[in-house]
């Protein structure tokens, strides 16, 4: 199994406002605190490479305290020059949020060339509140996503210049310099929460599917649908196309891990992801078919999940090294996930570094049967 270190770069604020997104006033953001946090977070990502993680992940969110990376490419750029081996996974750029998605093609190509071909390029739609923050029409979200993705893939693979004339994006000359180093283009991943349309779209293109913060039962179901969609497209999914993002809390004992997780992992769900329903679901963001599926599944909002729900549901993994190994075995052997992207919410910077070291020494080595395999060979393009 491959391990990627996933950072949200939260601004861990406790507050009583109804939303941590869109309307949470930025007067709560102290740039002096932010300076310390950004540098600690980047230190953690760099340390992850030292400890043996295979990849480092950044992502894009806007106007919130949950994740303070409005431009993931900026963070990726800093990591590229401070690391040598690890893959840099940008999970991902919010394509429909861009007025000029050709800029994504350019920036990813820059990073790929500078890093010697270590970049993984996630394509996402952005979550609901992002449509309030950027004012992009959410009813156009899906179509803009497909159109921007097609534009970027063509820009990376077809010799330019060529014209592109879409519904939302139009260019008389598509001809980005530089071209990406990886051939035919950097691996593309699709982080998603399981909409049927995205599963089908990703499977058809061999783009790995990343389940983000999802209960394990639903991961199993969506992985099944993805594998079936791959078969319909005439091939069998590699395990490295099935990836998962879940927070892991590991400590010397179950009791200690439990206490840390209650204090820190819970913040993500109860504060970081606190927002009203209308932000989660802007008009037209989800198709009626997927909305019907969501209603039938009866999924809870993050703030409605208790710690017990999160642990029992498999949203997070928490425990002593032995317990964490056992729980990860379910992901490795039953779900057959090939890549685990995880954050390690521990509270302080020092505690996080310790937790990372414990994981790297006591858990990771037990899942290294595939140490010699290149997880990006043949997938994502």
């Amino acid at each position: 199994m491959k391990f990627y270190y996933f950072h949200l770069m939260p601004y861990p604020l406790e507050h009583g406002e109804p939303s941590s997104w869109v309307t949470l006033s930025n007067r709560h953001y102290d740039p002096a605190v932010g300076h310390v946090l950004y540098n600690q977070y980047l230190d953690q990502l760099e340390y992850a490479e030292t400890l043996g993680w295979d990849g480092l992940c950044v992502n894009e969110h806007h106007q919130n305290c949950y994740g303070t990376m409005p431009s993931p490419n900026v963070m990726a750029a800093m990591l590229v020059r401070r690391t040598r081996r690890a893959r840099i996974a940008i999970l991902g750029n919010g394509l429909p949020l861009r007025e000029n998605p050709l800029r994504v093609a350019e920036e990813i190509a820059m990073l790929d060339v500078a890093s010697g071909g270590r970049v993984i390029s996630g394509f996402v739609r952005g979550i609901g509140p992002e449509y309030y923050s950027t004012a992009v029409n959410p009813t156009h979200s899906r179509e803009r996503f497909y159109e921007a993705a097609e534009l970027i893939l063509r820009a990376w693979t077809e010799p330019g210049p060529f014209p592109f004339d879409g519904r939302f994006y139009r260019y008389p000359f598509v001809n980005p310099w530089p071209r990406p180093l990886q051939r035919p283009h950097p691996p593309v991943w699709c982080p998603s929460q399981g909409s049927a349309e995205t599963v089908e779209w990703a499977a058809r293109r061999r783009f790995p599917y990343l389940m983000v913060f999802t209960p394990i039962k639903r991961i199993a179901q969506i992985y099944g649908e993805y594998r079936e969609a791959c078969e319909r497209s005439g091939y069998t999914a590699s395990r490295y196309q099935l990836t998962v993002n879940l927070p892991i809390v590991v400590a010397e004992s179950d009791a200690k891990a439990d206490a840390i997780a209650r204090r820190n992992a819970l913040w993500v769900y109860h504060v970081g992801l606190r927002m009203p329903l209308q932000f989660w679901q802007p008009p037209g963001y989800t198709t009626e078919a997927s909305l019907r599926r969501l209603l039938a599944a009866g999924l809870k909002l993050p703030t409605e999940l208790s710690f017990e729900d999160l642990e029992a549901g498999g949203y997070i993994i928490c425990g002593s090294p032995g317990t964490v190994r056992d729980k990860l075995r379910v992901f490795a052997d039953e779900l057959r996930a090939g890549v685990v992207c995880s954050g390690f919410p521990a509270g302080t910077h020092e505690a996080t570094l310790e937790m990372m070291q414990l994981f790297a020494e006591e858990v990771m080595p037990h899942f290294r049967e595939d140490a010699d395999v290149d997880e990006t060979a043949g997938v994502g393009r």
Partner: protein
Amino acid sequence: MTRARELTVRGVPVRLLSGGAGPALLFLHGAGGAGRWLPFQDHLARRFAVEFPSHPGHGGSPAAEWIEHISDLAFHYLDLLDLLELERVHLVGASFGGWIAAEIAVMAAHRLTSLVLIDPVGIKVDGWIYPFLFAMDLPELVSTVFHDVTAALALVPGGEGPDTLLELARERAALARVAWNPYLYDPLLRRRLARVTTPTLLCWGEHDRVASLACARVWAAEIPGARLEIFGGSGHVPHLEEPAPVAAVVGDFCAACEGAR
């Protein structure tokens, strides 16, 4: 008595409520008002043959993914007039429906005997930004739209199951398709209002927090000869908050225009 019909207008299914007798009057509803024949329509139906269609994607109509711009809805209603063989009508639009009505009036004033706009949105007014209703939960929405919040009871959905929720989601999406950004207006409409040669009545709730009285005065200045009536007990939806007095003023205005033809 009202009758409900399902029509097909250039391939688009339309739910149409009709009632009353007299000269034809087309009523265009606002968000959340689809398919609800309320006291306002009853009052008008005593003097006019009221045609009350649900906008595509609203009131249980199928999703209307062909709609890209507010003018698509204006053309859609010109097509409906053709289908109903109505040469000229009195056109009454409230809020979002008022925006559509104004778009129709700048395109085809010759099809209108009179134009009544009840707290319309649709134009950019300097110094005014429409509050972003899509971001509001229900209590905030109600207190923003209504001055008399008891009037909101008339718009309570019929059910609570998945089908009702999906219907509400479809309505929000249909509205967002044309109104998300620019929010609740068409940048080209305001300067075209000078083309409206139809006699025009503007009805406005004094306490409108969606489109303030400042908006009303801009509309009144832009549409040649428009008359402005203000209703002191209302917010954004006077036809729901004070149906009898609003219907009386609207009815008298339309009747006078009818007589002047």
